């Protein structure tokens, strides 16, 4: 039998533990984790993008069509589509491959430097930007060719392969390098205004090269010799048909039949569609879809670790957006809006 003194001691100990636990719970609950309790500063000191992040629902032309695909990377860097709409993703030093339904295929390529760009040809050949040089693999993942390094500081952010010329966007030199098909460097062109390491390219079926000159907020068209032919795009944070922030669009991809261009932006993280003349058509996904609390922009490391979206389009016109922080692919499909005037654009 316990004495009254022992019982009292137990009560005291219990009370102390309860108070301590209560204190812990209270401090967790009352911790101002997002700094929302206010800093006592006036409204002129607040930075509020909430209005700019709102999208007119009538402008949203796409919806997420299937569950998100987990790429298995710790963060995602680049995405491309290959034969049979296979999906190729880069994260860190690895390339992963998925079938068109998102099922992971056994092929993995791993190199000892960061993989920074990927392009896949119709025959399944994989052109990889391995930070400062290009490597070519066959469809089974066998290394076929390794080209010379561009030099220290180089960062290949996009590769375009045409029958005769291979183009590599090099963020380091802010220029596009031209190679012949065997990997011999021919020359380079452009003095692009690139405040951050996003520099995307695409190739049109009528033989022109598109390049995102992000600091100028433009998509520029070049002939295959590197002569600037035309450009479109301009800056605005308020007008949704323009490109926001210091440097956008950070990535883009062509719709089937080159009927239009899908662009991704950072800052106001969003995905939009333009027709091939550069007229705004609508949104694939507005900035609300990439809410801060999703972790995309809430982390201070954002941008520091190249956390912007990348995009590819498959043969069915599905827009595949690689969201880097969660390392997931979001699959968007056009909503059937035949009676919408905007749908006539593309």
């Amino acid at each position, binding site marked *: 039998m316990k004495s009254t003194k022992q019982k009292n001691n137990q009560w005291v100990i219990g009370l102390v533990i309860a108070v301590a636990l209560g204190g812990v719970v209270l401090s967790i609950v009352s*911790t*101002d*984790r*997002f*700094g929302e*309790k206010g*800093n*006592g*500063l*006036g409204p*002129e*000191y*607040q*930075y509020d*993008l909430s209005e*700019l992040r709102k999208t007119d629902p009538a402008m949203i032309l796409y919806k997420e069509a299937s569950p998100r695909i987990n790429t298995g990377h710790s963060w995602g860097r680049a995405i491309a589509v290959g034969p049979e709409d296979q999906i190729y993703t880069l994260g860190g030093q690895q390339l992963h491959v998925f079938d068109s339904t998102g099922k992971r295929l056994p092929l993995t390529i791993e190199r000892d430097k960061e993989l920074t760009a990927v392009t896949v040809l119709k025959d399944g050949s994989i052109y990889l930007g391995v930070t400062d040089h290009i490597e070519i693999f066959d469809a089974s993942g066998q290394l076929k060719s390794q080209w010379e390094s561009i030099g220290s500081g180089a960062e290949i952010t996009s590769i375009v392969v045409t029958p005769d010329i291979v183009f590599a966007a090099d963020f380091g030199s802010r220029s596009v390098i031209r190679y012949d098909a065997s990997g011999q460097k021919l020359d380079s062109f452009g003095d692009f*205004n690139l*405040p*951050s390491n996003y520099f995307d390219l695409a190739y049109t079926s009528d033989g022109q090269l598109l390049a995102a000159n992000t*600091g*100028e907020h433009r998509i520029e068209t070049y002939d295959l010799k590197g002569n600037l032919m035309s450009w479109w795009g301009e*800056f605005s*944070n*308020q007008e949704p048909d323009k490109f*926001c*922030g*210091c*440097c956008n669009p950070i990535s883009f991809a062509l719709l089937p039949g080159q009927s239009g261009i899908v662009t991704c932006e*950072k*800052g106001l993280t969003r995905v939009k569609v333009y027709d091939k003349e550069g007229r705004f058509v609508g949104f694939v996904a507005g900035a609300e879809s990439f809410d801060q609390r999703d972790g995309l*922009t*809430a982390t*201070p*490391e*954002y*941008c*520091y670790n190249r956390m912007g979206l990348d995009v590819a389009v498959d043969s069915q016109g599905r827009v595949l957006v690689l969201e880097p922080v969660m390392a997931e692919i979001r699959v968007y499909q056009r909503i059937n809006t035949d009676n919408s005037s905007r749908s006539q654009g593309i």
Partner: protein
Amino acid sequence: MPNQDNALDRRDLIKKGLHGLALLVTGGVSGFLAERSQANSYHWQIDPSKCIACGNCATYCVLEESAVKCVNTYAMCGYCNLCTAFFEPAPKSLNTGAENQLCPTGAILRTFIEEPYYEYKIDESLCIACGKCVKGCKEFGNGSLYLQVRHDRCVNCNQCAIAVACPTQALTRVHRDQPYLLKGMDNKA
């Protein structure tokens, strides 16, 4: 002479005791000093990978003018013409008119370098550490602007008042040999 030894013992004891006391005092003082100097060997600093630029740094420092200031790591800066830390999110036009500037105290200096690059410097005497530009830089730009405790201003409180108020526990103790947690391509904070 049974007591002689005892007397000597007592003298010895007192001597030893005094010696011990002296040692204790010296030890205590030097221990205290060592502790103090050890405490002085450590400073409060903001870990930029944790800071969300909530603005508390501007108002919670015990000093009337916060010891925290904004800094720019030039190796990360895009030198953007359209600096989103310098310009309001919705600027009326892209010039240095006060109405277009994001910093409420006008603490960011914009200098033309060469087409299309501009340098951005913080005038620390005007910066109050509100973190508004840090957010602008982080949201759209490269995140090269961030907040640091400036040790020429900080009085190194035992318990930093900002550390208590910081929602992300971004304040940490750093050794005086490396008093800043600098962002940079090779020096990820």
